[in-house]
């Protein structure tokens, strides 16, 4: 469940990772989540009479053989990696929004049943923010473990702990799945895209 904050990026990431290591988390390699945006090309709009929609195609290194495609407030399709090949074929109908690729890369930590991923969100060459994802392995129903997650988040995020993600809005008791994680990442990336570029802090 990703959380975002943006300060002076590099230092904040180091602060967070040091806190996690002091807590006792073990470093377990790296992770990457990326997102590309496509919009329906002008040629297909006339026949549908509706405004162009944005489609997000995302990948998550946690699920290396999958590709996630979603519409905002719409269905999220989980497909295998050949979906990217299909998007190339659909070039005439869906165009990639310019300079829209956004990704987060960082380290993966394991702390007992929690999986924590702290990453730097970058758009092109510039770092735009930080993403923190915490996953509680044993539980699949969100409402059952939200308070536990909140407590854990508070232990190392302090005042930056977020509220319950919108994804749980009306489905507190539904089984949580990878699609829900991707929806949260999409919302996070959109929020970061809308923000002004984070000013580069002086090196201390």
């Amino acid at each position, binding site marked *: 469940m990703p959380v975002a904050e943006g300060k002076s990026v590099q230092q904040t990431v180091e602060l967070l990772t040091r806190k996690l290591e002091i807590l006792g988390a073990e470093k377990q390699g790296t992770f990457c989540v990326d997102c590309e945006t496509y919009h*329906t*090309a002008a*040629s*297909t709009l*006339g*026949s*549908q009479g509706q405004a162009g*929609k944005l*489609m997000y195609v995302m990948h998550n290194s946690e699920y290396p053989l999958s590709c996630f*495609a979603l*519409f905002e407030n*719409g*269905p*999220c*399709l*989980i*497909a*295998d*990696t*050949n*979906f*990217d*090949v*299909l998007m*190339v*074929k*659909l070039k*005439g*109908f*869906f165009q990639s929004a310019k300079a829209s690729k956004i990704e987060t890369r960082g380290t993966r930590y394991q702390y007992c049943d929690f999986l924590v991923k702290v990453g730097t969100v970058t758009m092109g060459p510039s770092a735009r923010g930080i993403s923190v994802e915490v996953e509680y392995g044993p539980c699949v129903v969100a409402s059952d473990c939200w308070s536990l997650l909140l407590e854990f988040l508070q232990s190392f995020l302090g005042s930056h702990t977020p509220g319950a993600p919108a994804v749980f809005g009306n489905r507190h008791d539904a089984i949580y799945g990878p*699609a829900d994680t991707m929806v949260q990442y999409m919302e996070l990336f959109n929020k970061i895209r809308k923000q002004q570029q984070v000013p580069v802090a002086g090196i201390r």
Partner: protein
Amino acid sequence: MEAPPVTMMPVTGGTINMMEYLLQGSVLDHSLESLIHRLRGLCDNMEPETFLDHEMVFLLKGQQASPFVLRARRSMDRAGAPWHLRYLGQPEMGDKNRHALVRNCVDIATSENLTDFLMEMGFRMDHEFVAKGHLFRKGIMKIMVYKIFRILVPGNTDSTEALSLSYLVELSVVAPAGQDVVSDDMRNFAEQLKPLVHLEKIDPKRLM
């Protein structure tokens, strides 16, 4: 929009373009048993496999003359199997001596909300049908003998009627682009099925 001939396209994003090589034929219902018997002898030794699939064909109409076609297929008898999305390109016109129909093919396994997702993308369903039959394998070759059923009430797969009194026989291979030796192997195998069934290269455009 016609995609450029696939064999000219570079390898994009680390994936190689896959081609489907296809030969088709048909047998009347009463000859089915003898064909199955011969196929069981010629093909790889495995449990006879039957399938019952529901296929929906979706079109995306754009400014271009020809709409983009995608085929969504789901298994009706195997619970939990992923949906199968398939794109088939235009047949490669290259070599007249090539024994099989060759076209670019992209196969994607997806989650169950595929139809909702395609509708959201702007696709509309053109037609649907149910396919019921047998599946055999020999090495990389796949042989399907199946009957097509027309769906009488859209969306209701229980009320179907057979389209004809015959079974469609398809011999297909999905292989990377440029492997023409595949079509020779297919022709050799097809020879062994004569005179029960004549498998040949059928150009879909000639039927329209």
